[in-house]
């Protein structure tokens, strides 16, 4: 009897349990449905690539040269608007974004899922729009019916200077030329990711979903170039180009003690904000850094190099003289001084002062091809300097084992003809003479700053080209030559060692007599040079001598540098004891 009662109770409990179990199972199935079936049905995730901030570029004093700003592509989904909202949004579009009223109405009446309103909407306009929408917070996707797609664009403090050194970033984010190209791996950074739930219209739903990987912003690049020096160099160069109707020109300033480039002016240049104006192939030489990518015949500025090579190889002594008869035959070809002048017995200072081709050829002939070309190689001709800029040219130098080399090249190369170099190669070679014979690797980036790390670049000595006493002797001879015959380059209170050059312009296997490439290169103030300055004007019409055309620019640049860096004059140093 008792057992029958218990069995009845168990049956009832089992029924209730079954009912509860069924209800639970139903709930589990429904939850599972929404968890899996529902999610796949709306394909609800969207991965956003968070763009890293491209690193900025600053000058030696920390002034911004290149920075960024955020602009937006602004779109709208009119189909999400409620009936009667149209008028309010017309006001919003016209007042906050400056859209014409008719266009605003057209957008709102379209009832489309997405209409692009603007491609380059500034942050200020977006802020105003969101303020009017009463949205105090927003992300890159959601702002009511608006859709905001951010992107960054480069901002240039002075877009019309040093464009060929800085380079630029194309619309697809790829860098072109200059620092932007060379240091892209530093500047670019690494992208992050942010996954979101999105609704049917593609807008992010404010909910936790997926993972978040923050972007790593690019490093800040600090240049050795000072923007004030750069600006002055470009100003002087622009004046000279206009005055002498030159095709192109360069002014290079570097510190011979470290190899740091203080200014690199290449004109005509580009305005980084109006790149779309570049169309023709000729514009390549406005975009490219001609100081490192373009080659030219240096002319007589090679003579101090030849002299240093002869002294280093002990082919001649500093006190030697030679008999300048105005001409000389080397390899069956005649070498003559400019203007067919003959100077008689001359020492090396006079040879530099007169810029005697015969004297330079005499030095090269005394050295012989093997030692002469070995020394030119040591000075870095025919090879890249290793500067941290892209597209560096090696220059052209024929050497004895080549079929194209002729014995007469020994003579012509000694005074800078039949050999092509970049302006930077010449400046670096002069830098070795200024730095006790030690050649430093040139560089334009001194530091890279990351949020948690600063990388500094230490100056790199490439090699000792000549002995210190040879470098000093050549520097003194050059400075004396300036005092003797280059009055346009004389700077009161300071001694600069310098040399002019006037090269022909090669055209179709011969020289175009109507054009010349004058240049002036030097370093100072002696006895401890702080600056190497190169001034070069290309394809100047008429009798354009480096001494007359480029020397005054050199002098102006040197005076500016002395004043800017506060270098005391010899008189002040003497008074200070």
């Amino acid at each position: 009897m008792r057992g029958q009662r218990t069995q009845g109770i168990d049956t009832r409990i089992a029924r209730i349990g079954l009912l509860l179990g069924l209800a639970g199972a139903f709930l589990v199935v429904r939850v599972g449905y929404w968890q899996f079936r529902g999610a796949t049905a709306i394909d609800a995730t969207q991965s956003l690539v968070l763009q890293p901030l491209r690193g900025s570029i600053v000058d030696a004093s920390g002034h911004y040269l290149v920075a960024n700003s955020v602009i937006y592509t602004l779109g709208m989904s009119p189909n999400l608007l409620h009936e009667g909202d149209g008028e309010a949004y017309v006001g919003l579009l016209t007042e906050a974004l400056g859209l014409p009223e008719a266009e605003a109405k057209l957008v709102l009446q379209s009832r489309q899922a997405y209409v692009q309103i603007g491609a380059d909407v500034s942050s200020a306009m977006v802020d105003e729009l969101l303020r009017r929408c009463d949205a105090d917070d927003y992300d890159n996707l959601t702002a009511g019916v608006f859709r905001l797609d951010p992107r960054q664009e480069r901002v240039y403090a002075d877009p019309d200077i040093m464009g060929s050194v800085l380079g630029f970033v194309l619309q697809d984010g790829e860098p072109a030329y200059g620092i932007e190209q060379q240091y892209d791996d530093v500047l670019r950074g690494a992208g992050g990711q942010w996954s979101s739930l999105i609704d049917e219209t593609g807008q992010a739903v404010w909910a936790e979903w997926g993972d978040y990987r923050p972007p790593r912003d690019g490093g800040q690049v600090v240049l050795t170039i000072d923007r004030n020096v750069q600006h002055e160099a470009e100003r002087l160069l622009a004046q000279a180009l206009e005055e002498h109707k030159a095709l192109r020109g360069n002014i290079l300033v570097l510190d011979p003690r470290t190899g740091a480039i203080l200014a690199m002016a290449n004109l005509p240049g580009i305005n980084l904000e109006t790149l779309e104006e570049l169309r023709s192939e000729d514009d390549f030489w406005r975009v490219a850094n001609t100081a490192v990518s373009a080659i030219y015949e240096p002319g007589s500025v090679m003579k101090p190099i030849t002299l240093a090579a002869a002294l280093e190889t002990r082919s001649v002594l500093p006190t030697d003289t030679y008999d300048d008869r105005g001409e000389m035959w080397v390899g069956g070809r005649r070498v003559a001084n400019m203007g067919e002048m003959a100077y008689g017995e001359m020492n090396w200072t006079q040879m530099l002062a007169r810029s005697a081709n015969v004297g330079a050829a005499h030095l090269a002939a005394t050295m012989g091809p093997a030692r002469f070309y070995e020394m030119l190689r040591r000075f870095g001709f025919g090879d890249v300097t290793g500067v941290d800029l892209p597209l560096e040219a090696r220059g052209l130098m024929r050497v004895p084992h080549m079929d194209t080399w002729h014995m007469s090249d020994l003579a012509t190369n000694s005074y800078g003809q039949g050999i092509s170099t970049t302006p930077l190669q010449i400046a670096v070679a002069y830098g070795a003479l200024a730095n006790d014979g030690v050649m430093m690797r040139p560089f334009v980036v001194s530091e890279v700053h990351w949020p948690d790390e600063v990388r500094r670049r230490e100056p790199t000595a490439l090699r000792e080209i000549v002995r210190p006493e040879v470098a000093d002797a050549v520097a003194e001879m050059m400075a004396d030559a300036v005092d003797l015959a280059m009055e346009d380059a004389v700077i009161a209170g300071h001694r600069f060692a310098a040399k002019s050059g006037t090269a022909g312009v090669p055209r179709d296997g011969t020289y175009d007599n109507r054009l010349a490439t004058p240049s002036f290169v030097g370093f100072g103030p002696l006895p401890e040079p702080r600056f190497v300055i190169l001034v070069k004007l290309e394809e100047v019409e008429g009798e354009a001598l480096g001494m007359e055309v480029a020397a005054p620019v050199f002098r102006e640049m040197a005076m500016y540098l002395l004043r800017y860096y506060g270098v005391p004059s010899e008189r002040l140093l003497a008074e200070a004891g």
Partner: protein
Amino acid sequence: MQIDRSSIPTIPTNGSGRPGATALNVGRIVYIGLILGAIGLAGALLLRQADDIAALKYDIRVLIHRQETLRRTRTNLEGQIAAQESLQRIQDLGAAWGFVRPEAAREIELVYTGVEPER
């Protein structure tokens, strides 16, 4: 004939004599109660934790969002600084305020001649 009362079928009672009541095992009730209580407690704890995690994730999300907004603000400020400290702009301002370039200024050498002592 007299019928024995005990032989008549009756509705089962739980002893208190209340009709319809069943006699339950107290131990079983306690057991089921404990099971239900444990499940409820575990469920409540689980929900509480899920709630806390969801709230924290939301806060993280807000912070990430704010961080992204601040990055954009910083980017724009850097751009504005670059534009404001433009060399050309500074030179133009300097010229407007009457400053001249150093090379255009007259360099005057001042010689100190001493001061006559007062008599």
